[in-house]
């Protein structure tokens, strides 16, 4: 069932001749610029430097994952891009403008889905859609947008259910639909599949790959799953251990899209990329007995 859907979307992409396949070469225009960013928190026991000297550009249509051991500040960096917190030094730009706070052009998929429990799936997605398109479009068109977004993640059957009536994987699908429905310039994901079991996670990764291909979205994603990083991203940003974490190495994943999980399992290049990330995480940045 799952694989069929993927094949269908894969064919659609091939016929559309997606920009995605050639993203690093074609789309060189950076949408996000991060310049010398540092983040220091003042705690009871003095100042704590979480991040230092972060420099990173994200191009339009690119999928970048941030990976590192826990406590390396990858979520802190994502929050900075989201505008949920502001850096203590350096500058973050989105589309040429400084990031001074959160905004709907940078939507976030949270780890724990964060659907509002008193609203149906439909109403949850509508909340964002209304905010972004409410002024320009009539109610029927807004409703069509919500329906299309839920349809895209195959949740159209549970549109009018409440979050507590559906499974964890389904909730995260709705969370993804909410983020995509706002048609953001940049999609931020904070360990979106971290709370899910391995099988559901795989299904959602495939789903996400399909959706990203269909929409050509620019994505920055935090993960701690090496396979997920290689499978989904164009670039893997590997971070050194905190405190005062920074970007250690960047791996460019030159696997052509659409990517098929089963084919890649046989692909030596996939294994090489995987090995490169593991090498960094477990040889160069091994965390001593946490």
């Amino acid at each position, binding site marked *: 069932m799952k694989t069929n859907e993927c094949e269908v979307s894969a064919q659609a992409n091939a016929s559309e001749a997606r920009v995605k396949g050639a993203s690093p070469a074609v789309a060189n225009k950076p949408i996000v610029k991060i310049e010398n960013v540092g983040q220091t928190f003042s705690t009871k026991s003095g100042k704590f430097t979480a991040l230092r000297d972060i420099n990173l550009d994200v191009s339009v249509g690119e999928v970048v994952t941030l990976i590192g051991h826990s406590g390396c500040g990858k979520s802190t960096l994502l929050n900075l891009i*989201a505008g*949920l917190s502001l850096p203590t030094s350096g500058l973050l730009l989105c589309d040429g403008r400084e990031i001074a*706070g*959160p*905004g*709907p052009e*940078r*939507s*976030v998929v*949270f780890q*724990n889905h*964060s659907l*509002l*429990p*008193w*609203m149906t799936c439909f109403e949850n997605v509508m*909340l*964002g859609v209304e*905010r972004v398109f409410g002024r320009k479009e009539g109610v029927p068109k807004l409703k069509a947008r919500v329906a299309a977004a839920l349809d895209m993640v195959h949740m159209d059957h549970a549109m009018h259910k*409440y*979050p*507590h009536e559906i499974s964890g994987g389904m909730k995260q699908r709705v969370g993804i639909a909410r983020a995509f429905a*706002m048609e953001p310039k940049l999609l931020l994901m904070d360990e979106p599949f971290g709370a899910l079991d391995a099988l559901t996670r795989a299904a959602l990764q495939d789903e996400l790959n399909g959706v990203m291909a269909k929409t050509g979205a620019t994505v920055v994603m935090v993960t701690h799953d090496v396979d997920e990083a290689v499978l989904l991203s164009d670039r893997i940003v590997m971070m050194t251990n905190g405190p005062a974490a920074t970007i250690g190495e960047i791996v460019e994943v030159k696997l052509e899209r659409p990517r098929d999980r089963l084919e890649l399992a046989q692909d030596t290049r996939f294994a090489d990329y995987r090995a490169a990330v593991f090498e960094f995480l477990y040889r160069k940045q091994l965390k001593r007995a946490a």
Partner: protein
Amino acid sequence: MSALALKLVEAPAKVEPVPVKTAAAATELPVTVERSEQTSTPPAREGQGEGGPRNEHFRDLAKVLIPPLFGMLLLIGIWALVAIKSGNIPGPDKTWDAALKLFADPFYRNGPNDQGIGWNVLSSLQRVGIGFGFAALVGIPMGFLLGRFAFMNRMFEPIISLLRPVSPLAWLPIGLLVFQKADPAATWTIFICSIWPMILNTAQGVQRVPQDYLNVARVLGLSEAKVITKILFPAVLPYMLTGIRLSIGTAWLVIVAAEMLTGGVGIGFWVWDEWNNLKVEHIVIAIFVIGMVGLALETMLLMIAKRFTYESR
């Protein structure tokens, strides 16, 4: 087919002496018998099927009903025993007779100091309603302010801590002084005792709105009005309802005492009046009535709270 069956049924009677034919009939006969059984069995089985769950239903009902029934019997038993031993406390039988007479006409009016028990209960409820309504009007916005702004919280915390443990009846003289009338003074005590749980629970609810929901609001860029109606209010509502339930519970406790002191029409005053008339059985009835009204209020609010509790995650 049915014609054949009929023939076969008739067959054995006619051709009894021929053994071969009876044998043939015997092999066929059971078929007709089975058939008749088949047509008759389904309703019989359905009947049994209904009997099964119905029995289970009765058993469940019995499980729910029997223990409380025993409890009530125990209470009445002890009450009867105490009544017999003491002599001046009316027993269940005497009280029952008095109750029948009392509830035959609960809404009569013979002047301001002699009204049916129905009027007394209603006017007590009215006082609770008004006092509680004002408390909600002041307490809920206060709670929101205290929950939202740490400064306000720290500013009001000592005041609330100081005043909350005070019996609301201590405020009654102040009420009498300010309002110069008994009725608003009683309402005033209700206001005072209802407001604390309302402020504290609402404030706690506001403080406990999950950061995730507020982050969603920030990322979606919702307007302040949308944040309040779509996120803050629904998230705080269960806490608010807990506050309301606690308030009403206390208010119903306090109103009886307050009315004993202020007089007028009301269940508390009625209890005191019947004590002066030495109609002790009426006091016992009043105790049951007060209990039942309190129980009804509590149950009603629990049902409302259940409706607005969201299973999150």
